[in-house]
């Protein structure tokens, strides 16, 4: 099945089949009559952090949201093409979108903890998916997720306090813990640091480093330095198309396309 799909034209790297997590082929996204994404094909590997960069409005968020079908919640959005998770078409009628979103978790641009306790924020996902059989097990999942999100030491004494009372950076790590708690395979992050100060940003970036390898991570960022710091693969989007995709170090030092070069040298932003 996979062999029939042509390797994406913009791809400068071959991802070994055993680490291939998601593939997109000829994906178009329309908002009503307006096309926001045009013929995007990309492979996303398991062992890497993949960064999507590009000027504002080029469709990074739109494309990211096709990967866990969050676009379904926008009535006018329409997605065509093929997106596979472990070789399974996620837009297939047999795909359960609730399960898909548990497998492909998401962290949003603005930290959005539930107005509930810190514990409840993390426990929510496991609870609705029935991932624990006892209270003790649930507590263990919550602790493990908060530890992985690097938040445990800061909140372990106040798990019953509201998640919205935390600082912005802590809230974002709480949202990451919430995503981790359902044990996803892929984590999508849409500009997770854009609302944070530099210190909180550094913490999140460090966290992304630590999570790498355990989860396939895709991060949207408009900050090229951040892409260079946290990712191993970078995809450059422009005007709804994928212009260039490659090893991060390669792409930044030796861009193949004129538009990529213009962007990374700061000619437009």
């Amino acid at each position, binding site marked *: 099945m996979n062999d029939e799909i042509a390797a994406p034209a913009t791809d400068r790297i071959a991802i070994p089949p055993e680490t291939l997590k998601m593939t997109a082929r000829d994906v178009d996204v329309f908002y009503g009559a307006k096309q926001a994404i045009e013929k995007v094909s990309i492979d996303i590997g398991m062992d890497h952090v993949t960064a999507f960069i590009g000027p504002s409005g080029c469709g990074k968020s739109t494309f990211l949201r096709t990967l*866990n079908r*969050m676009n379904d*919640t926008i009535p006018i959005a329409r997605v065509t093409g093929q997106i596979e998770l472990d070789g399974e078409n996620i837009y297939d009628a047999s795909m359960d979108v*609730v*399960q*898909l*979103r*548990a497998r492909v*978790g*998401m*962290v*949003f641009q*603005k930290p*959005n*903890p*539930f*107005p*509930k306790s810190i514990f409840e924020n993390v426990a*929510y*996902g496991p609870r*609705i*998916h029935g991932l624990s059989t006892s209270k003790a097990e649930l507590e263990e999942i919550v602790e493990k997720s908060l530890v992985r999100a690097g938040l445990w030491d800061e909140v372990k004494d106040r798990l019953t306090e*509201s998640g*919205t009372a935390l600082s912005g950076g802590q809230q974002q790590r709480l*949202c990451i813990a*919430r*995503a981790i*708690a*359902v044990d996803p395979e892929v984590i999508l992050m849409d500009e997770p640091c854009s609302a944070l100060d530099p210190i909180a940003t550094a913490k999140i970036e460090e966290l992304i480093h630590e999570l790498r390898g355990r989860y396939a991570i895709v991060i949207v960022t408009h900050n090229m330095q951040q892409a260079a710091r946290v990712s191993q693969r970078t995809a450059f989007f422009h005007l709804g198309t994928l212009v260039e995709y490659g090893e991060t170090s390669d792409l930044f030092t030796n861009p193949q396309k004129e538009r990529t070069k213009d962007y990374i040298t700061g000619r437009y932003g």
Partner: protein
Amino acid sequence: MNAAQFPAREPTDWTTDAMQRRIRARYRAEKRFRIYGLFAVLLSAGFLAFLLITMLSSGARGFTQTEIALPVDFAASDIFLEPAQLEGGDRDQLLAGADFQGLAEQTAIDAYGEDGTMLISNGAWLRLREAVADDPELLRREERIWVQASTEVDFAARGADGLHMTDERRAMIDRYAQLEADGNVRRGLSWTFLSSADSSDPTLVGIWGAFKGSLLTMIVTIALAFPVGVLAAVYLEEYAPKNRWTDLIEVSINNLAAVPSIIFGLLGLAVFINTFHLPRSAAIVGGLTLALMTMPVIVIAGRNAIKTVPPSIRDAALGVGASPVQVLTHHVLPLSLPGILTGTIIGMSRALGETAPLLLIGMRAFVPSPPSGFTDAATVLPVQIFLWSDELDPGFVEKTSAAIIVLLVFLLAMNGIAIWLRNKYEQRW
């Protein structure tokens, strides 16, 4: 853009007289504004205090009654019943057949002179019958029984204040003083007022009938208006496609909330009574009619509350794999509940005080016993107030005020519960 386009400006002098005047004017304006606000608050608080004080001072007496002692000699009376007869199953019938009224009147004449019957309430004899029903052995002896005094005695108990004085009144006041000195009258909380229903005699009326009628009506109203209103709000906000039909529904609901209440009464009459043949004057029909009126208020408040739930919360829940229904029940509804409850308070308060539509569906009938169910003839507090305030007998004046107090207490209790619920859920933010 070069500097020549913008000629150099003098630095602003912040200390000139003109500046100082502006500052003073600003302070004055702010102070004035505060005073207006304070005045408005004091004015409305003053009106409220005035209302409460007048109601409480004239209404408190409505909860009390004057009782007068009757030394009833059952053994020597015309009532030829034996205690043993009252053990059987036909007790009520036997009691109903006995002339307790005549006995009460005769006793009053014997004890207090020719015009003795003027001192006791028209319904005083009921007390004798109740006493015998409770203790049949009374039939063998004489017993002092406390019965309701007449309105005249009740007024005399109040003394000279506030009433237009006539010679009869003055005589009655003197007489009351004598009765009091002899220990033949007493005043106390009126159990009759708290436990019975309407009557044509103000000494015998009770508020319990109307209170229970209001309670039953409100139960029907909230049981229907709350779930239907919330579900309609949820559907319109979350599921309804945006097209001409839903626009039409939206406009209709908004207009429905503004329709004068009497129209709902006509609607209730036509639909529930004439078409579905539900019983007239019943709490169920009143409740259904008021539910029609309350529903649009809840729908509008509910939609606004649902709209204020931030989309980021929905995204968050969907992002961890919550289904749309889970997003709704776990997040959207709990977060919008305070707003929904606020709308419910407003709607229910309005429904509780509503009179006009209920008059149309027959709840103005004279209902002498408390309703025992949703389909029994009933009246409600505001209608009862309306009916009593229309009575000529001056004894109804303080009963009306007392009924108003009961209505206000009902309203405060209902709102108190809703506010408590709202605060309980608001803490979750």
